[in-house]
């Protein structure tokens, strides 16, 4: 689990999404439809993006699973993909976002060395994740930006709808927790 061995127990019927969230406490993986359409619950199993609501937890014994919690660095520094999402305002309610990030990670890794991504390629890569807030436009921008960042600044330049930074902006908002 995100690079560490984790143990937990599950009934055979427990979906991986439920196991991650409620047994391992990894609530960053969100559940939006439980029938494999919305993509909010997407995680990596052995490096491939899959719907965690369509896999039973028992099937993942011994597998390498990566969730959104495994993206940022230990010190909290955002992954370039996460950074790009913030810069491009690619999230609003943020509920679908973990699924987008996990779907995009292998896509961007695979395209790390390819030239500029076309809009069609990007939109096709996003096709398996639903977002109800953004209209996808800024997510497309974020992918382009992340691709540039992840290819070490080569490739194409980012689009123009990128916000200005205000310095240290982490953790300053508040929505009261449990």
């Amino acid at each position, binding site marked *: 689990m995100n690079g560490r061995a984790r143990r937990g127990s599950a009934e055979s019927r427990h979906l991986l999404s439920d196991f991650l969230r409620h047994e391992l406490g990894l609530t960053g993986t969100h559940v939006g439809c*439980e029938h494999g359409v*919305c993509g909010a619950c997407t995680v990596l199993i052995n490096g491939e993006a899959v719907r965690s609501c369509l896999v039973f937890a028992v099937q993942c014994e011994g597998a390498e699973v990566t969730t959104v919690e495994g*993206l940022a660095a230990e010190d909290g520094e*955002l992954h370039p993909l996460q950074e790009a999402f913030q810069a491009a305002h690619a999230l609003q*309610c943020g*509920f679908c*976002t973990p699924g987008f990030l996990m779907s995009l990670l292998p896509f961007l890794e695979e395209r790390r060395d390819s030239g500029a991504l076309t809009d069609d390629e990007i939109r*096709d890569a996003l*096709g398996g994740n639903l977002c109800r807030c953004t209209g996808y436009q800024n997510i*497309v921008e974020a992918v382009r930006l992340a691709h540039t960042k992840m290819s070490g600044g080569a490739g194409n330049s980012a689009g123009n709808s990128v916000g200005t930074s205000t310095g240290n902006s982490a953790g300053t908002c508040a929505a009261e927790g449990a």
Partner: protein
Amino acid sequence: MSTRVFGEPIRRLEDPRLLKGKALFVDDVDFPDLLHVAFVRSSFAHGKIRSVDVDAARARDGVVAVMTAEDLGDYWSPGPLLVPPPPIKDIEFNNRTQVPLAKGKVRHVGEPVAIIVAESRYLAEDARDDVFVDIEPLDPAVDLEASAAADAPKVHDDLASNVAARVRQDKGDYEKAKAAAAHVVSGRFFYDHGASAPMENRGIVARWDDRSDRLTVWDTTQAPIPLRSGLAGLLGLAEAQVRVVAPFIGGGFGPKIMMFYPDEVLIPWLALKLGRPVKWIEDREESFFSTTQERSQIHHAEMAIDEEGRILGVKDHFLHDTGAYAPYGLTVPINSQCTLLGCYRVPAYSSSFEAIYTNLPIVTPFRGAGRQHGVFVMERLLDLAAAKLGIDPVGIRRRNVLTPEEFPHKHGLIYQDFTELEYDSGNYPEALEKAATEIGFATFRSNEQPQMRADGRLVGIGLVTYVEGTGIGPYEGARVTLESDGTVNVATGVGTQGQGHFTSFAQVVAEQLGVEVAKVRVTTGDTDQFHWGTGTFASRGAVVAGNACHAAALEVRRKILDLASQQFEAAVEDLELLDGEVRVKGVPDRAMTLGELAVLANPMRGAVIPGTEPGLESSRYFGPDRGTTASGVHAMIVEVDPATFEVEIKRYVVVHDCGIVINPLILEGQIVGGVAQGIGNAFYEKLAFDEDGQLLNASFMDYLLPTSTDVPKIESHHIETPSPLNPLGVKGAGEAGAIPVGALFAQAIEDALRPLVPDLTIAEIPLSPDRLFELVHGTGSDENSGGGSQ
């Protein structure tokens, strides 16, 4: 550094938590002794409940409680009417609201009949399958026109008919206008709508704590404070004993403002009764029944015009499907009625509607909240008028939009906020011309389209306008507190569902206090943090809560300056707030951090001057006289595949005016996201009920939300006409994007299909390739034609 932050495209402060998966959503709330709920729901749209057998469910291992309406005793009662009918003359309103669990009769598919509490959701669902509900089916009222008829099956037996309301509003004398008209155009217009389908379903967790004698409720609500007050009343608790937290919410779009959904009545009650925390998370399948929707209106409308295409008057009568209950009053149909007038000068208007109870899930506002229905009718009438006179869509609109000199413009109707409908400000001609120029309307019509048509391509262009009444009352409040470490705390009563309030409110406050935005910590949706408020609806967050934040920040600014003036023995006019400090202008070493000042404002013993209030803090409220009116123009070029009837949006242009902009990044996100939902509404999303009231597409496989490949790049442009109704000059923007899209699709696709069907009039939304095929080739006959009503 400059501390100018208002109006800047500042990155959102809330994003890192969301991006790391660390933001708290309701389903993330967990306790070791948490109980889980599943509902037993009606599988019939209309029927008499003969019996509910819960014995097997109660006997199942892991089941803690199973309750039916009978088990609720005195606690069972219909929910409150959230919005009473507005003060319109001769209004008729027959109020019926939803019940916690169906008693005697079920009135729509999915209406809850019993509630199961178990050790896990898996077990609760097992027990749900054990329950046997014996229902004697009754003929359902499903089709809107049939349900309005005198002989229709009655949804509420004690009412004379299914008429929930009759409302008539008039302006001028339409019949006189008609008599003087050169032409009258008319039509029957059908506008359907769908499910709001936020990516996060609804949910609620309630926990009673014996030691503190308090109840805490985490709820996906858009209205935490009214929910708190209502729950306290229902449960016999003091308001101070109830804390409602609306943490991060995964989208709302309206239906999460609805209050006292059955689950919201039952879960907190069960937590009290059982002495254990209880959770219910709506699943996607049940969301199609257990969350409110928006649905059909059928309009019969006509427009009287003069020789030049100027509107002389409009007449409209429509039926509005309100579903099985009407807890939200008449907000949706009144929005339709008032918004129909749009950007235009309409000297005479005669409008009436009937809201009709049907055996379908409840209808309450969803992004647009009926406005799109009205816009659709008006824009279609204008297009018919334009066709009659042989002028183009831009031309007819140019002749009829209000000019800047005509503001404020009184329409003489009563709006959803109970005040007279009056537009505060706008520049409709500028927006119209800008949109026409940006889309290249004239050259497309004169050059590109004829060429493409000659190549056999079906391409069309459309341009429509809309207004949106936003930012209505009653009021919101905010408390701004300067803390001793220089942090500024802001608390407000509204909930937030992704609109970026953590950032935009911080910008409003930072602007006045001269601090970095990142120093402002905003709390929304926690009734322990702020006591008063209404909620997030009607595109009002930025307007009403934003201005409350502004007012509180101004007051804190005054307090800072007064205290600093004493400290520095300098006049207030000689002080400035910059970079988190208060300074004497031009004297750099005469400065103090705001944190230091905050410490001084909290006097030690012996240092208090009697009568002073401690702290650099202020709570302020903003209640507007009336709503402010945003507006805009959308234009689009589409291509229809002549063989498969697939539609491709080649270009989409938005020109939007929502007054002064707080954060252009966030605003653009709201507009583009709204358009995407509008596209869903216009071409993909349809709640397909059959004649029995069964929903045929209660899944994301068949209820089609637009994906990244269905929504084009939106080119958006803004103009800023400040609102005179609030100090910030802002107008709401939340719903705008979604409002005109249906009208635009109809116009542009009609234009595209013109070579195939020259006299085609599209008078309905949503469309689909299947429907376009029918419009071109006729309905024909083939065995097994498609399902779905209307």
